[in-house]
C-alpha cells in the first residue's frame, strides 16, 4: 500500500492540488522553487558573461572605430602622448610568457602527478600532494613580491651564464641576449609556471589515481617498466582529462596580472630576447588604467581587455577541438 502511494505521488508530481496532499504541496513547492533558483543561477551566469562582453565592446568602441580591428592587432605603437595605440607587443607578451610557463609547468606537473600516483610510497604521498596544492593557495600578489624581492636578484646571478651558454648559439641565441637584470619575459614565465603547477598536477594526479588497477597490473605483469605503464597505459587512458587540466593552467597563465606585473619589466617595446622586459595585456591594464586621462586612451585599454577575452575564448575553443579530435581518433582506432 505504501509503495503504491509513493508511486502515485511520483506520477502526479505536477498536480499539487490533490486532496490529502498537504505535506506534498509543501515539498513540491520547495522543489519547483529549487528548480527556478537553479535555472535562474544558470542563466544569470550566462547573462553576466554576455553583459560583460557587450559593455566592454561598447566602451572600447571609440578605439575600435579609430584603429579598426586588424590595425589595432598588428600595430606595435603604444603612445599615450600622440594617442596612437596598438596591441601587438602585449598580445605577443601574453602568449610568450604563458608559453614559457606551459613548457616548464607541464613536464614538472606530469612528474609530480606520476610520482604521487604511481611511484611514491604511501607515507610520502599525502605530504607531497598537500604541499603542491598549497602552492595554489598563495595569493598572486605574494608571488609577485617574492618574484621581485627574492627570485629576480637570484636569477640575475644566473642570467650571465644563460646568455653566455645559449646566447652564442646561432638563431636560438637571439632569445637569450641582454643585460642581466633578473626581470623580464623569462622570469615572468618561470613565476607563472610555479603558479599554475598545482592546477595541472592535481588534475593529473586525480585522473592517474583513477586508472583501474587491473590495467596497470596487467601491464606490469607483461613486464612493462613504470615509465612504459605511465606513457602507454595511464596517459592514453586519461588523455582527455590531462588535456583539460593543461588548458585550465593555460587559462590561468593568460589572465594572471599582479605577479606578472611585478617581474616582467613592463616595457612596451617588443624585444626578441626572453631576458629583456616585456608586457602582457593584464599587466598593461593593471599599470595604466588609473591614470588614463584621454577618452581614446581609456577605450584602447578596454579594447585590450576585449582582446584578452578573445584570446582566452580562442584557447578554450582550441582545447575543445583538440579533445574532439582525440575522441574521434580513439573511436576510429577501437
Amino acid at each position: 500500500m505504501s509503495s503504491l502511494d509513493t508511486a502515485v505521488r511520483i506520477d502526479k508530481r505536477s498536480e499539487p492540488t490533490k486532496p490529502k496532499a498537504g505535506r506534498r504541496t509543501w515539498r513540491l513547492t520547495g522543489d519547483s522553487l529549487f528548480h527556478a533558483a537553479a535555472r535562474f543561477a544558470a542563466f544569470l551566469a550566462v547573462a553576466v558573461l554576455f553583459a560583460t562582453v557587450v559593455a566592454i565592446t561598447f566602451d572600447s568602441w571609440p578605439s575600435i572605430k579609430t584603429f579598426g580591428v586588424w590595425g589595432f592587432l598588428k600595430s606595435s605603437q603604444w603612445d599615450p602622448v600622440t594617442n596612437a595605440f596598438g596591441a601587438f607587443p602585449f598580445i605577443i607578451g601574453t602568449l610568450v610568457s604563458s608559453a614559457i610557463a606551459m613548457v616548464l609547468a607541464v613536464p614538472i606537473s606530469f612528474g609530480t602527478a606520476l610520482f604521487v600516483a604511481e611511484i611514491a610510497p604511501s607515507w610520502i604521498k599525502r605530504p607531497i600532494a598537500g604541499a603542491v596544492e598549497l602552492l595554489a593557495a598563495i595569493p598572486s600578489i605574494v608571488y609577485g613580491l617574492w618574484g621581485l624581492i627574492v627570485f629576480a636578484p637570484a636569477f640575475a646571478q644566473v642570467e650571465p651564464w644563460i646568455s653566455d651558454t645559449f646566447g652564442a648559439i646561432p638563431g636560438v641565441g637571439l632569445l637569450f641576449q641582454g643585460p642581466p637584470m633578473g626581470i623580464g619575459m623569462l622570469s615572468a614565465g618561470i613565476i607563472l609556471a610555479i603558479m599554475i603547477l598545482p592546477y595541472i598536477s592535481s588534475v593529473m594526479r586525480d585522473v592517474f589515481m583513477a586508472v583501474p588497477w587491473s590495467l596497470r597490473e596487467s601491464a606490469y605483469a607483461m613486464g612493462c617498466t613504470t615509465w612504459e605503464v605511465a606513457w602507454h597505459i595511464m596517459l592514453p587512458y586519461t588523455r582527455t582529462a590531462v588535456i583539460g587540466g593543461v588548458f585550465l593552467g593555460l587559462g590561468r597563465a593568460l589572465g594572471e596580472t599582479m605577479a606578472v606585473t611585478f617581474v616582467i619589466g613592463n616595457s612596451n617595446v617588443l624585444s626578441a630576447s626572453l631576458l629583456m622586459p616585456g608586457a602582457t595585456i593584464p599587466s598593461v591594464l593593471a599599470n595604466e588604467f588609473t591614470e588614463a586621462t584621454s577618452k581614446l586612451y581609456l577605450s584602447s585599454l578596454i579594447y585590450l581587455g576585449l582582446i584578452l577575452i578573445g584570446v582566452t575564448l580562442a584557447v578554450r575553443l582550441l582545447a575543445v577541438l583538440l579533445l574532439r579530435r582525440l575522441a574521434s581518433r580513439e573511436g576510429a582506432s577501437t
Partner: protein
Amino acid sequence: MNRSSRGGSARLLCGVGAALTIAMFCSVGVLAAGGFTGAGSTWVYPLLAKWSSAYQGATGIQVNYQSIGSGGGIAQIKAGTVAFGASDMPLKPEELKAAGLIQFPTAVAGEDLIYNLPGIGPLQLVLSGPLVAQIYLGKVTHWNDPAIAKLNPGLHLPNKYITVVHRSDGSGTTFTFANYLSKVSPEWNQRVGANTSVAWPVGIGGKGNEGVSSYVERIPGSIGYVEYAFILQNHLSEARMFNADGKLVAPSLQGFQDASAHVDWKNAQDFYVILTNQAGPNTWPISGCTWEIMRKSAAKDSNLAVMRFFYWGFEHGQQLAQAISFGPLPQSTVAAIKAYWRTNLGYGI
C-alpha cells in the same frame, strides 16, 4: 525521507530570508553630514589625508579623498559624482572651458634621479637635463660614457650598462619628468613628449615609487626617477643636477618653492603652468605641482565647502605639508587663487 526534505526546504527558505535581510541592511550607506568627497591623484594623497584629518579635528567636517588616480579623478569630476577632482597634470584652458571646470594648484613637490653605482654615494653623481634625456632615449648606454665623465671628473665610473628604470603605471611623477625632458631636449620633445605615461624608448617599468626604487636598489648600474619625499624616507642615492641657470643644485623643498616663485601665477590662464626647468639660482629643475578641479555648475554649497577646505589647508596646513616634503604655495599664489575663484564662480570666500 519526506520529513527530511521538508526540513531542507524550510531551512533553505530561512537561509534565503536571512540573506535578503542582511543585504537590505547593508545597502543602507550614509555619508556623514556636511562632509564631501574628492577623488583623483595618488601623488597628492598623503597631503590631503593629513589635511583632511586635521581639518576634521578643527571644524568637524569630514573630507573623504579617494586616490583613484588622476584619470579617474578627472572623469569623476566631469561626471559630477565628486565635489572635487585632483590631477597631477593640469588640464588645458580650452578643455576646462569645454567641460565647465576650473582648476587651481595645491602644493609644490619635486623629484630626482636615483642610481645604483657601487662606491658612489648620495649626491656624488652630477647630471644635467640633456644628459638624462640622452640616457632615457637610449643614446648614452654605459656609465663610462664621455658625456657622463665630463660632468663627474672626480668619480670612477664603471664600464657598466645603464639599466633605465621608469614608472610602469600612469603617474604625475612621469608627467613632470617627461615634461622636463621635453623642455631640455628637442629630440625628446619630438620623439616622446610628455604625459602621465609615455612610449618609453628603452628601459624597464616599476609600479609606483616603490617599484622603481626596488628595481634600482637591486640592479647594479641602474637609474630611475622617484619623488623627493620617497627618497628622503628611504635613504636612496640621489643625483645633483644643473638647473636652468646653469647652477649645480641638490633637491630641496626650498628649491621646489623657488621654482614656483619664478612662475607668474597671476597671469597664467587657469594656472596652466608647469614648474619644470624654471629660472633662479637655487631652483630645482624637476619640480612639479598638483591641481584640484571643480565644476562651475556644482551646487554653491558644495563648491564653497571645497574652497573653505583648501583655503584652510593653504593657511594652516603648511607645517603638515612640509613634514611630508610638499612645498606650501606662497601667499601671492594663494591670493591669486582666491581672486580666480571669485572671477570664475561669481562667489568666493
